[in-house]
């Protein structure tokens, strides 16, 4: 059986009890309730708002609310051009987010600086924060943002959560 199997559940056998790996359960919870923190800087923010509006509805993917507070959110969606003046703020807000956190670089400007090759534009937000998913487009269609969210969910589901917890290392037989 592949290591990333999530759960095998047969209602006739287990009834109301699901037996699964803790990793799988934790990742399932985290993946299906990714609350984005919209770092809406420029035009991509308008498409991000459109993703949150009723036609493309990001909340059906679990991103129920766009939390502007970094403490209450899971994923920072950098939507728009990051200038050098703004870079310190983006970094500071990313540092304030609590673990686990992910970053989606939405659009060409956030991924690589886009068409603004100038003295004032940071050439990609991955110069200051680690990015998980890059979305291309200027601005990306809302469907592309939703696709990125689904890819992020796929990435979250593969994360080895428990193996990284230092406190559990003796229990798992791994000595310090």
């Amino acid at each position, binding site marked *: 059986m592949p290591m990333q199997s999530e759960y095998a559940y047969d209602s006739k056998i287990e009834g109301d009890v699901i037996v699964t790996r803790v990793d799988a359960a934790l990742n399932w919870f985290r993946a299906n309730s990714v609350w984005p923190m919209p770092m809406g800087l420029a035009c991509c923010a308008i498409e991000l708002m459109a993703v949150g509006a009723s036609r493309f509805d990001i909340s059906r993917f679990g991103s129920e609310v766009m939390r502007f507070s970094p403490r209450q959110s899971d994923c920072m969606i950098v939507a728009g051009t990051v200038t050098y*003046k703004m*870079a*310190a703020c983006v970094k500071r807000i990313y540092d304030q987010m609590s673990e686990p956190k992910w970053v989606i670089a939405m659009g060409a400007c956030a991924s690589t*600086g886009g068409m603004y*090759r*100038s*003295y*004032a534009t940071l050439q990609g937000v991955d110069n200051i924060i680690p990015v998980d998913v890059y979305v291309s487009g200027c601005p990306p269609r809302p469907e592309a943002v939703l696709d990125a969210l689904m890819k992020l969910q796929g990435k979250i589901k593969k994360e080895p959560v428990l193996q990284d917890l230092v406190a559990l290392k003796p229990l798992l037989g791994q000595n310090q």
Partner: protein
Amino acid sequence: MTALESANQIKVQFGDIISEPAEFRGEISLKLADADKLVEVCNFAKKTLGFDFLVDITSVDNYGEDPRWTVVYHLRSLVHNVELRLKTDVSEEKSALPSVLSVWRTANWHEREIYDMMGIRCVGHPDLRRILMWEGYPYHPLRKDFPLAGKPTDLPGVAFTRVTPMEGGPFVTLPTKEDSIAREPRVRVPEDAEPGVSDKRLVKK
């Protein structure tokens, strides 16, 4: 009252320091030879002629010419629906001209932007600090001798800048007098590129 009439009235009032009105595409431009009389001219335009709306203040870098800066004021009269352009030259050694904040309060941010982008100080401005770049940024980006790719700076805790990789761009024809082969947009290697950094397949300018 048309734009030409108001331009002529200004010329009559101030005499030699105002040039003859120039017309291009239906717009009248006046050149002011003495930048120190700027506030007087603007006050006359506002109070007597009714140019109550300052549309824009622009600065132009005449790189290689003296005087280096030209500051352009776009005046508009909402009452008479008339527009006028007033230009004045500033030399590089001086790089300063009087502020028209006392005439139109909208000049506040325009003059801050001129200082930020070109480095021209407006004397009499109460709060002349950078507006688009951050306090402490050492350069004036819109000058012609400042490269588009930028220069590296570091202000710890505030901001940093790095040189943008232009990869041979921008892919635009060079405005030189050479033949079209030399002018064509090609991948160009910058003159101060380190040896060995650039791709040998790139065509040199």
